[in-house]
Every structure is written in structure tokens, then in C-alpha cells.
């Protein structure tokens, strides 16, 4: 009964979808390397999370750790050797605990790990778990799983704002022949964008809840990502866009907290004035 209940939670949906993609992609690529990397990433993330939580005496989030490990393994190449997988998982988990605001991570942990690993370990991302080199129709699985997850976390405005802005900008890039829009609109890059938009951008702790903020978050992420893509190409543009969105979310939370504190202060002052 507990398992059934867990399966219906947002984290349950995400975990089931990611495991399904892991299995489908492993069959498609005819290799168990991806599953091996997934196990390594999840175990490493668990171990680091366990010890860190012990040290700072804090309850660990098991679901979040599994999701982070799975995303890492689905994005990294299946040929990535285990020390790099462990290193990426370690960066992700540490960022979750160190870069925080009110005990919640500021940046998407998996995105931080994957972004930093490119520069530290010089490892590429293949987005194999998004079926980048497999038949195009497999993207249907991404869309179905992503739709369910997005609906469950109530992030449709954010996803539409992101994808809409992203594709509009790529259309203009293509029309005016600026940068390499053709690549970004085709596999494996389009698979990466869909996977990223539906499973990473929608992470509840690092993205806003209100619809108006979600739309701004999506637009900021898309514009920043496309600017980086247009200037540098590469494969890290999606993550950079997400970090800009994460920073907006952080700034937003801080502003809300500050205005709440000011309001509270004003109320206290007026109460004091009344009693005088």
C-alpha cells in the first residue's frame, strides 16, 4: 500500500519514468553500461548523502537522491568511466547541501553536477537516456512521461513558456541564419531539450510555484540558454539557462521573504505605537 501511495507522488512518477527510459534506452543501445552507470551514480549519491546528512545531523531525501543519480546516468555517455560518474554524483549532492536558501537547494543538483563535470572531468554528455541516437518515435515516451510529471507538479505554464520561447528564438536564428539552429531542432539536441524541459526544469524545490513566476522562469531559462547556444554552441547551454532560472527563483524567494519581514516589522511598530 505504501509503494502504491509512493508511486502516485511526483517523485514516484519521475523515478518510474526515468527507470523506464533507462530500460528502453539500454535495449535500444544493446548495452548494460547505462544501467551500470545508473547503479554507480545512485549508490555514490546515496553514500555521499548518508555521510553528509550524518555530519550535519539532517534528514536525507532518498527519492531526490535516486532521481539525481538517474538523471546523471541518463545524460552522461554510457562509456563514461565510473570515477567520473561518482565525481559528478558527488558534486550534485554537495551542491544540494551547500548552495541552499532556507534549507532548499538554489540550483538543480543534477544540472550542477553535469555542468561542472564538463569543465573538471572533460566528459561529454550524450543524453542517451533521451533516445538521442535511437528512432525518433521513441520521443513519444518522453512526451507521455513528461506530460504526466508536469501535470503532477503543476508546471505546465513554466514548460510552455520555456519551450515556446526556446523554439521561437531558434526559428528566428534559423530564419536569419544566425548560429546553428538546425542542430538544436534535431536529434539528439531536441531530445535533450524535451527531456530537460519536462524532467529537470520542473524540479519543484528549484523552480517557482506561482504561474506568473513560472512563466518568467521559463522565459529566462530559454533566453539565457539560447544566448549561450548562439555564442558558444556546445552542450551546456540548457544547464546555463536553467541556472539563470534558478537564480531568478532564488531572488524571488528572497524578495518575498524580505517583504514579509518588513511587513511584520511594520505591524510590530504600529502595535507598539498603539500601546504607548
Amino acid at each position, binding site marked *: 500500500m505504501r509503494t502504491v501511495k509512493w508511486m502516485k507522488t511526483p517523485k514516484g512518477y519521475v523515478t518510474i519514468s526515468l527507470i523506464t527510459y533507462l530500460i528502453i534506452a539500454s535495449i535500444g543501445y544493446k548495452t548494460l553500461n547505462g544501467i551500470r552507470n545508473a547503479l554507480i551514480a545512485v549508490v555514490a549519491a546515496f553514500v555521499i548523502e548518508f555521510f553528509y546528512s550524518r555530519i550535519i545531523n539532517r534528514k536525507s531525501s532518498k527519492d531526490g537522491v535516486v532521481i539525481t543519480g538517474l538523471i546523471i546516468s541518463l545524460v*552522461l*555517455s554510457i*562509456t*563514461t*568511466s565510473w570515477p*567520473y560518474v561518482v565525481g559528478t554524483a558527488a558534486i550534485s549532492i554537495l551542491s544540494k547541501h551547500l548552495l541552499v536558501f532556507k534549507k532548499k537547494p538554489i540550483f538543480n543538483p543534477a544540472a550542477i553536477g553535469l555542468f561542472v563535470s*564538463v569543465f573538471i*572531468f*572533460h*566528459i*561529454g554528455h*550524450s543524453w542517451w537516456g533521451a533516445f*538521442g*541516437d535511437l528512432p525518433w518515435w521513441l520521443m513519444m515516451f518522453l512526451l507521455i512521461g513528461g506530460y504526466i510529471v508536469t*501535470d503532477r507538479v*503543476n508546471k*505546465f*505554464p513554466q514548460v*510552455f513558456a520555456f*519551450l*515556446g520561447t526556446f*523554439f*521561437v528564438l*531558434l*526559428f528566428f536564428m*534559423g*530564419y536569419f*541564419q544566425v548560429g*546553428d*539552429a*538546425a*542542430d538544436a*531542432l*534535431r*536529434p*539528439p*539536441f531536441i531530445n535533450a531539450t524535451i527531456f530537460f524541459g519536462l524532467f529537470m526544469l520542473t524540479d519543484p524545490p528549484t523552480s517557482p*510555484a*506561482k*504561474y506568473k513566476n513560472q512563466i518568467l522562469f521559463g522565459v529566462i531559462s530559454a533566453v539565457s540558454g539560447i544566448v549561450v547556444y548562439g555564442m558558444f*554552441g*556546445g*552542450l551546456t547551454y540548457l544547464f546555463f539557462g536553467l541556472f539563470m532560472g534558478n537564480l531568478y527563483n532564488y531572488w524571488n524567494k528572497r524578495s518575498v521573504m524580505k517583504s514579509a519581514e518588513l511587513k511584520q516589522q511594520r505591524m510590530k511598530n504600529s502595535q507598539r505605537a498603539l500601546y504607548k
Partner: protein
Amino acid sequence: MKKTDKKWIILCSTAVAAVYSAGYLTTENQVSIEQPIHQVAKNIQTNNKAVNDGSVSNAQKNKLYKDGTFTGTGMNRRGSIDVMVTIQNDKITNVEISDFAMHYSESDIVGLPDEVLKNQGARVINVSGATYSTEAFEDAVQDALNQAFNTVG
């Protein structure tokens, strides 16, 4: 918070799909990579005196490869690599990456030309996590060697 109306979801999905399709069609003629082609023959042959007006020396006939510098291209869905391979007396004497247009960093495969020189062949040890660049590099070297292959002998 109240869930997004299903009608809005359908409407927005259609709009996003329409914009994507417009972008896809607009960039149709800009697609540089025929997917999933792994290599495209391209040959810029310099300093090659092997094939000319039918007079081929016996020494040249017995060679496996023509002497000269040959350019090969390796492509996959993540970009392309051009290499220039110089051959002298059936020996690879120089390998240079002349154009790197992958979506990865060139520094990941910077040691591969030396490996080709050492191995005297296109096969190199796979760079962990840089499989696509390594494959494109190998294909490019093999393409250049195919151009150099001496069909006369």
C-alpha cells in the same frame, strides 16, 4: 493551486508544436549533417604525384598508399571533424585536426593525432566520455587513408 485547464494545455501544446515545425522547416536547407551518416568522402589531395598521365613508376606501384597529404571527414549527429593525414613511403608522418565542429570540447581528443602516428592506423583508444568525438576522429582518419589508398598497385 488550481490545475491548468486541459483546453489551455492542448492550445499551448499545439502552439509550441507549430513554432517547432516552423523552425524545423526553416532550417531544412541548413542541415549540414545527413543523419546518421558517419563519414562523407572529401579529398583535398596535395603534393601527390602518383597518378598522372598514366606514367606510374614501379616503386609507386608497389606502395599501399600514395604519398601526400589527404583530408578526411568524420561526421555524426554531434558534429564533424576534418583531419589532414600526411603519408610518406607508406608511413603516416603527420596528423592534424584541420577543422573541429563537434558540440564537445576539442581538448578532449587533442592527444589522438599522436596516437595515430604511434599506431600507424585509424584505430585509437576510446576517450572516456568523449566517444562521439573519438568516433568522428577515427572515421576522418580512415576517410583520409581511403583517399590515399593506392589503387594503381
